[in-house]
């Protein structure tokens, strides 16, 4: 065993990070011990199977990762702000943009969306939990441990540095001899398995656990988007699993799937990666479409325009998302015929997406629009995302892509798609559903401050990149000369990045401020909502609904409020079956973390021990005879009385 492999070359930035990580860890441990919170942490969070708590943990982890990825972004923009900057060296810059991409897509956008999914979906379909609550905990802990594994790479052994797409042969042992890309294959593998389990779990939940009367075509749009997303997950993630396993074999065991010699094919990796990677884009975008649909309907006080075409457009997008992967390498010399085919399928995605944009605009038409913070993000999404969309069509044209490929134009495009398409959506959803989970709203004034900082700075940051791309600036360029003329626009972009950072800081400050000072909501329905999640109490009781609601129309709660269609036809409380908490998913996650860590450093014996450990935990889980427990009627009635806060039943 070679201890040198653990060391990361000396740089003040990395030492600073090491010290701050160590201090934060010690601080958390000391704090937990001092306030005697270990038991609370274990009972209420680490062992929980409650979908709401798991959702909250997902969102907290995603917020943390947003800041980790954000700091990466700031470092990149600072390094390229002026020609010949000496802030980062090439190696460090390569690690930073690689982890920025990985973290933002896989450990920020996706978990944030899965977090919202976890909190809201069972509520929206009138269920008491997800179909497999313990498996849900397994999903979370696998994701979380994968994320942690990737994060420690920065201080132990070195981060992956071959780009988030990790093209071979660059990512092979020959050209990336450090352990960085071992971390890539293992961290993604572990969290990817978690995501795949989530996919199965939510498909079953949505298909089997809807409230009586809620047919597929009466489901809220967010539920529809999540259903389709999880179908994509189940189809796409196995490809990633296989590709990462092959990568791991290449790097750890000397197999030659993607090498240059001995029959390996470097482009096989690119194909496998993008067969997963392009649908992945829609895994983060489609739920966002669902979130926006909910918010637009709520704050224009109208039902969603063209519900049926909204559903079908998502289905078509999900199908097409599997038919476009080769547009990521038009320039591979695959010939005009192949390129033309992928051009047309790629451009075709613009049609269903356009349908959605116009349906949203027509939902607003004849409505009564109120500009709350979640609605502002939603409204900002439409024009900004449209720019992302039309530049996407431009990129889809194979011939023109020969000039855009791998340039800052592409970087601008996908940020114009992903930030309004995913980040604004999760922020909007966060503001929108926050009062449901915690029982109070976020401050509107602070929310709007953050909004304007974020929206304006976003455009200042990314719009110049379209021009930089056309000027010939390639992506992943850690430095450039003064003569290239890239300097001024990059400086502008850096200024925008600073503004974005300020916006996000205000957003977090808002959470702190609102927790302390915002008045508690007693109505359970602060936004005058339309769907079932607003029909239960805020904060939500453990069992979600004391009585399972009956659904007659699409906007069930709205119909109940407007047309007096009763939601609860049963009036008698009954005992409620709930799953019991278990620590096994957490332990499984920890063992997976150690397996990953040992494999990264080729420590075979500990790795085998950890591998056996996983089998042991799985065996314990499969022989678990715990059938859950019942909440007695008296307790349900008592809880309901307490949450009613004096309202009449």
């Amino acid at each position, binding site marked *: 065993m070679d201890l040198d492999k653990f060391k990361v*070359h000396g740089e003040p930035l990395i030492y600073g990070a090491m010290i701050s990580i160590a201090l934060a860890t010690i601080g958390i441990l000391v704090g937990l011990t001092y306030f005697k919170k270990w038991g609370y942490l274990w009972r209420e969070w680490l062992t929980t199977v409650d979908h709401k708590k798991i959702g909250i943990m997902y969102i907290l982890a995603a917020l943390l990762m947003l800041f980790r990825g954000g700091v990466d972004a700031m470092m990149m923009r600072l390094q390229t702000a002026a020609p*010949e900057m000496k802030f980062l060296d*090439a*190696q460090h810059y*390569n690690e930073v943009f690689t982890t920025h991409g990985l973290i933002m897509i896989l450990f920020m956008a996706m978990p944030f969306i899965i977090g919202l999914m976890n909190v809201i979906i069972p509520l929206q379909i009138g269920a008491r939990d997800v179909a497999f609550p313990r498996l849900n905990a397994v999903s979370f802990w696998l994701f979380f441990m994968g994320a942690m594994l990737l994060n420690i790479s920065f201080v132990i052994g070195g981060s992956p540095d*071959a780009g988030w797409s990790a*093209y071979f042969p*660059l990512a092979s042992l*020959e*050209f990336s001899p*450090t352990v960085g890309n071992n971390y890539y294959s293992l961290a993604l593998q572990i969290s990817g398995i978690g995501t795949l389990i989530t996919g199965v779990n939510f498909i079953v939940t949505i298909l089997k656990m809807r409230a009586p009367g809620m047919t597929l075509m009466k489901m809220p749009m967010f539920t529809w988007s999540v259903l389709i997303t999880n179908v994509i997950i189940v189809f796409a993630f196995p490809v990633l699993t296989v590709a990462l396993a092959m990568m791991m074999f290449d790097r750890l065991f000397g197999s030659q799937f993607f090498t*240059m010699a001995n029959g390996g*094919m*470097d482009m096989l990796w690119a194909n496998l990666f993008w067969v997963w990677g392009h649908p992945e884009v829609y895994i983060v975008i489609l739920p966002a479409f669902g979130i926006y649909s909910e918010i637009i309907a709520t704050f*224009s*006080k*109208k039902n969603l*325009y*063209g*519900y049926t075409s909204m559903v079908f457009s998502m289905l078509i997008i999900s199908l097409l998302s599997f038919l476009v992967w080769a547009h990521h*390498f038009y*320039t591979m*010399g695959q010939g005009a015929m192949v390129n*033309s085919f992928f*051009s047309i399928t790629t451009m075709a995605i*613009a*049609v269903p997406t*356009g*349908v959605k*944009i*116009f349906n949203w*605009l*027509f939902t*607003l*038409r*004849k409505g*009564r*629009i109120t500009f709350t913070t979640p609605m502002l993000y939603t409204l900002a999404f439409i*024009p900004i995302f*449209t720019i992302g969309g039309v530049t996407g*069509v*431009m990129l*889809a*044209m*194979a*011939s*023109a*892509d*020969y*000039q855009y*490929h*791998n*340039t800052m134009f592409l970087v601008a495009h996908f940020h114009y798609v992903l930030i309004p398409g995913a980040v604004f959506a999760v922020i909007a959803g966060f503001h929108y559903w926050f009062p449901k989970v915690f029982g109070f709203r976020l401050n509107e004034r602070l929310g709007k401050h953050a909004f304007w900082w974020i929206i304006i700075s976003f455009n200042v940051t990314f719009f110049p990149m379209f021009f930089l791309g056309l000027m*010939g600036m*390639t992506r*992943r360029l850690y*430095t450039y000369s003064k*003569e*290239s*003329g890239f300097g001024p626009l990059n400086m502008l972009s850096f200024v925008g990045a600073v503004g974005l950072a300020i916006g996000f800081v205000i957003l977090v400050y808002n959470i702190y401020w609102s927790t302390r000072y915002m008045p508690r909501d007693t109505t359970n329905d602060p936004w005058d909502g339309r769907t079932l999640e607003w029909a239960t109490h805020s904060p939500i009781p453990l069992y979600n609904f004391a009585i399972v609601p009956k659904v007659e129309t699409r906007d069930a709660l709205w119909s109940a409020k407007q047309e007096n269609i009763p939601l609860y036809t049963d009036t008698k409380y009954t005992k409620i079956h709930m799953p019991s908490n278990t620590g096994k998913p957490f332990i499984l996650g920890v063992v997976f973390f150690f397996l990953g860590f040992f494999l990264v450093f080729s420590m075979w014996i500990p790795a085998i021990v950890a591998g056996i450990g996983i089998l042991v935990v799985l065996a314990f889980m499969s022989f678990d005879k715990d059938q859950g427990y019942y909440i007695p009627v008296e307790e349900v009635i008592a809880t309901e009385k307490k949450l009613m806060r004096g309202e009449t039943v």
Partner: protein
Amino acid sequence: MKKKGPLYALFLSLILLLPGCSSIAVLNPKGPSARTLSDTIILSIIVMLGVLAVVYILYIFVLVKYRAKKSNEGYIPKHEEGNVVLEAIWIIIPIIIVAFLSVVTVKTTNEVENVAADYKDQTPLVIYASSSNWKWHFSYPEEGIETVNYVNMPVHRAVEFRMYSFGTITSLWIPQLAGQKYAMSDMLTTLHLSADTEGSYIGKNANFSGKGFAHMEFEALVLSNKGYEDWVKEVKETAPKLTEEEFKGLLATDYLGRKTYSSTHLEFSPPPGDHGEHMSGGGKEMDMDNGNQEHQDNKEIHPSPEPSSGTEFDSKPDPEVDQPLPSSPVDESTHEGH
């Protein structure tokens, strides 16, 4: 593109409207291939501005008209299911737009994948461009010369680049002359281009290839026919021969300045088979004859990047380099020759 007179005029007017366009390399083409791409890009920008305009006008109209105000307080909007005719409109019109752009794409993709129309009757000048670490080797099999990190070519001449790599995937890109294409280790890719104007153009690797990626630029110098012939003659008379040993030395070096030789490495290190063979041959063609196997063998001498050296590229001049390295690769090449 000459048939599209009115459209072309529209492109030109847009170019004039966009300030500072001369610094935008992609929209300032100097050859037929890049011009086709530039026209395609401008056409798509115009179409897309139209789409944006429709969305934005509708968006502003809706937001202004239907915002919550005192005057519409208490107004509860009616249930509105959707409208088949309207929805059909915003399905069909985008389909028409996409169909139009598809036709343009297929046509222009074919155009740039082949020799430009005006140069069809010429035999192209073949230049092999191979990448290793963070440098480019340009071999001229007809002339029997080879250059490193710069490429000279004659004006008004069809040029055919044949690209491959001795390592990671790279992408050869001369924005003002043609779009980019990948150079990979196990197949040959082809890029057709020709220049209409003499001058010096920036060429670069556009695909991330590791530590030295940012420094992987080269100068593409377009000379008059006479100038080119003189240069070839001079190289043949004055430059040394490229021996196999020297070439191995070049491959093993991370960074290099310019180099010139009076023979090519293709003689002892043949390129891989082309794309078609690779895809269809099922390994049959991968024999000694077309050099594929030999190319594979040559990879063994290809060095791995040194993991331990954390030093900056600039501060470590390589003993192999006989010309001083520019502090930045761009310094040595003026952006435009005029």
